[in-house]
């Protein structure tokens, strides 16, 4: 969805705990979703993706959940590590995947 000028949401998590980052997407026609991680001073990097015909997908330490009924996406990070500290974006794709809309981002701070 579009930014409405809000400050960047921040999630602080103790090292070793699990993190859950949430995202509400805007377009019910979106059929492909991606989570990106952006470290300070770098470009966004792919973490995990999911298609609309799935409701869960697991990667290494990460799980993405998709609830199309309420247009909600979440990213779960297991055993959060200091290297996980970054800004996380969800992205929704539609229109033959040429149109990509990024969410507003969530800053994850891992407390050692």
């Amino acid at each position, binding site marked *: 969805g579009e*930014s409405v000028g809000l400050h*960047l949401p921040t999630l602080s998590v103790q090292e070793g705990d699990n993190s859950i980052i949430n995202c509400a997407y805007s377009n019910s026609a979106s059929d492909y979703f991606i989570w*990106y991680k952006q470290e300070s*001073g770098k470009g966004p*990097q792919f973490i995990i993706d999911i298609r609309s015909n799935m409701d869960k997908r697991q990667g290494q330490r990460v799980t993405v959940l998709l609830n199309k009924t309420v247009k909600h996406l979440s990213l779960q990070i297991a055993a959060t590590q200091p290297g996980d500290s970054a800004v996380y974006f969800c992205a929704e794709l539609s229109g033959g995947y*040429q149109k990509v809309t*990024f969410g507003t981002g969530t800053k994850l701070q891992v407390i050692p």
Partner: protein
Amino acid sequence: DTAVSQTPKYLVTQMGNDKSIKCEQNLGHDTMYWYKQDSKKFLKIMFSYNNKELIINETVPNRFSPKSPDKAHLNLHINSLELGDSAVYFCASSQGQALHRFGPGTRLTVT
């Protein structure tokens, strides 16, 4: 072997100047993009090119003109720079299922 590269990494210039940012990808992707990231980290697509043809132009002022000399390059030229143009500009590329690979970004500061 950098997949998506941008130059320069930092660009400081005065209002009214014209500047260009260059982007190159060596992934063989057929689609390239320019994104603008503001101070609140919001990422917004500006342009998308597929095989050198413009396919997305998201209500960007016409002071911004992308140029794609070949499918491995997408440069961004900005005329008459304004203070509000200060941001980080990211180039990205994709092939097929739109998994974007992003460049390292160019931090533009207009004074």
